[in-house]
């Protein structure tokens, strides 16, 4: 097995702007970020096949606009922004397809969980996903990033373009809503 080359972001960003090396460099980007972006997307769209499609779109969009990336922001921040926008766009499209209003409860996304072959959670995990799905998009993102990824507020602030104070408040509200939902469901 070939030894994996160490990922150096500064080197990769420089290679991305070299026409001779850009494709290989983007391959390194995909290899480095596919897993973390996938889980972020999966928690938003729930279904594995949907997450796979959104992840593909995320990398395609990043690749086709790579010329606009000048390295002013971190590559991870830029990719997360694209992934989040793609996820929210996908969820809204799915609501339209299901003839639901944008403000409707998003638990329709998790109702299919029990039949998803790529989900082996128990009843408690399904209930938690349903509770998370009732949150508005931004709160859901903040909750997922903080609770599952344990992301720092300053990193989240860069990605979401929101102040750290607002993010802390958002997480607090999300936790309270989930707690209330779960206590009501017994």
């Amino acid at each position, binding site marked *: 097995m070939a030894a994996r080359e160490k990922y150096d972001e500064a080197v990769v960003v420089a290679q991305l702007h070299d026409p001779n090396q850009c494709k290989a460099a983007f391959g390194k980007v995909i290899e480095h970020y596919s*897993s973390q972006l996938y889980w972020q997307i999966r928690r938003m769209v729930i279904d*594995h096949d949907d997450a796979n499609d959104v992840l593909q779109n995320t990398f395609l969009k990043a690749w086709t606009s*790579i*010329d606009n990336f000048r390295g002013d922001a971190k590559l991870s921040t830029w990719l997360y922004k694209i992934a989040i926008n793609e996820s929210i766009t996908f969820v809204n499209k799915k609501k339209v397809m299901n003839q639901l209003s944008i403000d409707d409860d998003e638990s329709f996304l998790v109702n299919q969980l029990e039949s998803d072959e790529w989900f082996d*959670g128990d009843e408690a995990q399904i209930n938690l996903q349903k509770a998370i799905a009732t949150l508005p998009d931004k709160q859901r993102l903040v909750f997922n990033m903080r*609770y599952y990824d344990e992301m720092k507020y300053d990193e989240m602030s860069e990605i979401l373009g929101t102040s750290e104070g607002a993010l802390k408040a958002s997480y*607090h509200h999300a936790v309270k809503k989930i707690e209330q939902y779960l206590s009501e469901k017994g």
Partner: protein
Amino acid sequence: MKQEDTSFLTKYGKDPGFKVPENYFADFNKRMVDMLPDVEITPVDVKPTMWQRVRPLVYLAAMFAGVWCMLTVLKNVNNTDPYAVGAVAEKLTDDKSNVDEFIMSGSVSDYDIINYEDSVVMSNEEEVIEQND
């Protein structure tokens, strides 16, 4: 982070129960690279910043400084002469300049001050009487 999480969430844990097919990420990475269309890249000379250039040197210097500090401290600890320490302590205890005047003034009570003032007034009065005589 731990302070924020309420106890009810510990019951659910951090695993959402999502799974992926075996070798999904390895297959995805390969498939994704093959799928990339040709795009026009404008060559840009991305020069490393000053910090990126000097960073290895700074880290190296910091490492040497740390080692030097550690060696200096260890050397001082090993070379401490117990007799020399005793001599310094003796000198300090004998040296009257080390007596803190502030601490000394703290031992003079209000009673002492009033007595002193009274004695000054008394002696002045005695002098006046003597002059009158």
